[in-house]
């Protein structure tokens, strides 16, 4: 019985983890410009993330070690530095964007400029990490994140042609704005498949004490959780397509994004949009700061656990504190959160190969995985994701210049 509680919780957490500033912003831009045509990119991103989370979760449950820990040991410090930097730099930019997302939400709610909110929001997130345990961080943000179900309500209220939405599941080339289209594909994939998400997930499996008996929980959490999360992101896109496309509005600020819910649901929709934006971005802020601290601590062999008091793992606690503080600076100085979001999603997409390709080796190492190594299905999926990640790596920067 207890395990099913954990399954439910895990699923809810995945929903909360999926929907954040990046997926909201890129889905809205995609829907506004190309209607339902980009639904396939969200679906593809969702499946890839589910596969990667299932694998890093399985890796942690079977070996009792985190993905970062195994990366350092198998790559050695000389090559570990590459994924380390490739996760840290885009991850930090995503953290700044999430903090910006909360700040923008608060600006829209109060009228006080977003830059003034940067430091207070960072402090509240810091206090949660400093005082809370892993369970509190995970469950608290997850349950509140359920507010994002409002996007489903909004989409239903707008009465889209669901067959047209379904048709978007099949990839198709655009009739115009090719560079912009493929740029949005890369951003959507970058927003869905964030390295910090599966690094956080594998560390979380250890924080929650997962063992081999949790492989079922892991599969359901990664699969069903992301299915719901990705489904909600598609609803965001549907809302945007219904609201913006007919009016030919091109989205270039967060203030406009609120219209996706304000149009079908009025003031309540607007309020719910702000609540959802603030909560999901706040949750992501906490998770990315922790993921950064896990990256340092596990890579360098420090004591680490969000369940330990800060004085027992002072470098770990100092790392997330410092990351939050540094992330607040660009926002406090008035950096444009939406521009930052777009750049960080593309960079995030470009960084994928170095965390995806090593997984192929680790998931097939029987000394680590015993009898739970990847089968042919898992390996085929992982090879395809690795190939996709290489394409994203090569295409990201040129597309940023052409379409961004």
């Amino acid at each position, binding site marked *: 019985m207890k395990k099913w*509680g954990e399954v439910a919780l895990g699923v809810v957490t995945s929903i909360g983890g999926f929907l954040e500033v990046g997926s909201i912003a890129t889905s809205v831009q995609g829907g506004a410009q190309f209607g339902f045509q980009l639904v396939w990119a969200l679906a593809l991103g969702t499946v890839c993330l589910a596969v990667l989370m299932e694998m890093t979760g399985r890796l942690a449950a079977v070996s009792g070690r985190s993905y970062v820990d195994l990366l350092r*040991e198998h790559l050695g*410090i000389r090559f570990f530095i590459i994924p380390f930097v490739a996760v840290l730099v885009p991850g930090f930019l995503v953290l700044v964007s999430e903090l910006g997302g909360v700040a923008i939400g608060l600006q829209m709610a109060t009228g006080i400029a977003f830059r003034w909110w940067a430091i207070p929001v960072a402090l509240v997130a810091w206090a949660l990490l400093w*005082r809370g*345990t892993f369970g509190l961080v995970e469950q608290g943000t997850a349950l509140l994140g359920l507010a994002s179900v409002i996007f489903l309500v909004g989409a239903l209220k707008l009465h889209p042609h669901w067959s047209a939405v379904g048709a978007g599941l099949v990839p198709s080339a655009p009739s115009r704005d090719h560079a912009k289209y493929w740029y949005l594909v890369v951003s959507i994939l970058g927003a869905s498949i964030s390295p910090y998400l599966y690094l956080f997930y594998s560390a979380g499996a250890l924080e929650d004490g997962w063992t081999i008996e949790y492989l079922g929980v892991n599969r359901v959490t990664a699969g069903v959780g992301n299915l719901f999360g990705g489904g909600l992101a598609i609803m965001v896109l549907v809302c945007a397509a219904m609201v913006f496309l007919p009016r030919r509005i091109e989205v270039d600020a967060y203030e406009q994004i609120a219209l996706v819910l304000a149009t079908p649901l009025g003031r309540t929709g607007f309020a719910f949009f702000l609540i959802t934006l603030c909560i999901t971005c706040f949750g992501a802020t906490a998770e990315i700061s922790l993921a950064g601290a896990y990256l340092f601590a596990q890579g360098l*062999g420090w004591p680490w656990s969000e369940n330990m*008091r800060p004085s027992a793992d002072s470098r770990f*606690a100092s790392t997330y504190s410092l990351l939050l503080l540094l992330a607040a600076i660009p926002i406090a100085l008035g950096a444009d959160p939406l521009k930052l979001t777009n750049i960080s999603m593309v960079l995030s997409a470009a960084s994928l190969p170095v965390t995806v390709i090593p997984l192929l080796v680790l998931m097939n190492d029987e000394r680590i995985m015993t009898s739970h190594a990847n089968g042919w299905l898992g390996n085929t999926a992982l090879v395809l994701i690795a190939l996709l990640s290489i394409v994203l790596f090569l295409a990201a920067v040129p597309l940023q210049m052409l379409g961004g």
Partner: protein
Amino acid sequence: MNDGLDLRHDVQDAQLKDRNRENIGRCDSLVLELRDGSPPRVAAMLIGGAVRRERVGRWMATLGRLLPGARNSASAVSRIPFDAVRSIGTTIEVDVLRDDLPSEHLERWLAKHVVCRIPGADQKQESKT
């Protein structure tokens, strides 16, 4: 350990734990001792930022020397005699105490001068479930 020990696979970069099973860093480098008339043997494991940067590459080591506190980090290297190894598995347990290691200087310094001065550093709020 019948197959012998693969230093690069089993020891280099492995997670090290002290006698209380606390994390004390990873094996950043190995020291071989050359002896007259007998084969070289592993003398010690090294832990520390300076050693790590050396292994990443010369450019990284040079970069490290430009950082503030470079002199401190050069002296903050722990040398753990190989004789202190108690077991080698997925982690390596060594018979030393975390508090005695120079490479744990930053952890101790942060705990004493920063972390413990902030309220709540010594307790955690449990979640309800």
